[in-house]
C-alpha cells in the first residue's frame, strides 16, 4: 500500500465517505423511500441528496480556500449547514 502514499487525514477523509455510503446503503434497504421533489424541482432520493451534499461541500471547501475566508475546518461548519439545507429542502 505504500505506493498509494497514504496519510492519516486522507485515510480519515475516505473512511468518512465510505462510512456515509455504507450508512446510506443500509438506510435505503431498511427504510425504502419514495423520491420527492424539492426546491430544485427535480426528484431526489436520500442517495441523490447525499451526492449533492458531498459535491457541494467540495466546492464550498475550495471557495473557502480560494478566498482565504479563514481556517479550513470552519468551512466544514458551512458544509454542515449546507447539508442540513439540502436534506431539508432539495
Amino acid at each position: 500500500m505504500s505506493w498509494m502514499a497514504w496519510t492519516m487525514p486522507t485515510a480519515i477523509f475516505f473512511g468518512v465517505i465510505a462510512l456515509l455510503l455504507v450508512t446510506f446503503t443500509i438506510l435505503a434497504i431498511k427504510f425504502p423511500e419514495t423520491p420527492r421533489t424539492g426546491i430544485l424541482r427535480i426528484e431526489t432520493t436520500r442517495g441523490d441528496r447525499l451526492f449533492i451534499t458531498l459535491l457541494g461541500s467540495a466546492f464550498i471547501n475550495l471557495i473557502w480556500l480560494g478566498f482565504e475566508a479563514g481556517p479550513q475546518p470552519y468551512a466544514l461548519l458551512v458544509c454542515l449547514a449546507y447539508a442540513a439545507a439540502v436534506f431539508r429542502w432539495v
Partner: protein
Amino acid sequence: MNKTVNQKAWFLVLPVLILVAFSAVIPLMTVVNYSVQDTFGRNEFFWAGLEWFSDMLDSDRMWDALGRQLIFSGVILAIEIPLGIFVALNMPKNGFWASFCLVLMSLPLLIPWNVVGTIWQIFGRVDIGLLGYTLDKLGITYNYTQDITAAWITVVVMDVWHWTSLVALLAYAGLQSIPDAYYQAAKIDQASRWAVFRYIELPKMAGVLMIAILLRFMDSFMIYTEPFVVTGGGPGNATTFLSIDLVKMAIGQFDLGPAAAFSLMYFLVILLISWVFYTVMVNLDKRDGV
C-alpha cells in the same frame, strides 16, 4: 410515482464496482493522497496540507487554461450541434442513399484521435499540406504554428470535422423515431417548415440532443491528443487546454502534488457538469413519460 424504490438491485453491479475500483477509484484515491503531499521521487512523501490547492487556486496558469477550455467547448458546441441537426434534417430518410450517408458519416468517428491530429497537421502545412498550400497560394497568411488565430481555427475545424457526424447521427436517430402521423397532422394544419421543426422535430430530438451535448461537452472538455499533435499547446500557450497543461505539469515538470490538486479540481468540475446534464436528461425523459 407512489411506488417505493427498491435499491437492492444495486448489489448486482458489485462485480462492475470491483472492476471500477481497480481502474478508477484506487488511482483516484492515490491522486488525493498525492495532492496533500510533496515528493522528490523515490516514493518519499512530505506533508504539504492544502498548500497545492491554494497555489492552484491562485495560479493564473490554471484559470487561463480553464478559460481557454471553456471557450473551446463553447465554440465547438455552438457549431457542432446546429450543424449536426442541419445535416440530419437534410439526410435521405430511406433507401440506398440513407445507408450510404450513414456509412460516410461514421467514417471520421472511426479514426483514432492521434491520426486525426496527424491528418490535420499535415493538411494545414504550407509546404506539403493541401489546405495550407492552397491558402498560401490564394494569398491568405495561414500558419498554425505561429499565428494564434490560425491555430485556434485549425483546432476547432478539426474537432468539427471529427465529431459533427456524431451529433448528426444521434439527431438522425431521433428524427427517424418520429411517426409519420405527426407530419401528416402538421400538414393538415398547414404548419410551416419552421413550425414542424420547432414543435415536432426539436421536442422529439430533445433526449438524443441532450446526450449529444453531454458527450460532446465531456469529450471536448477533456480533449488532449488532437491539439497536442497539431499545435502542441502553442503558439505559446494559446491552445494549451486543461489536460495538456495538466500533463505538462505532472509528467513534464514532475510536480505531482500541484498536478494532483489541479486534476482533482478538474474532476470536480466535470462531475458537477455531468450531474447537471444527467439530471436534466432524466427529468426530460420523465416529463415525456419515456
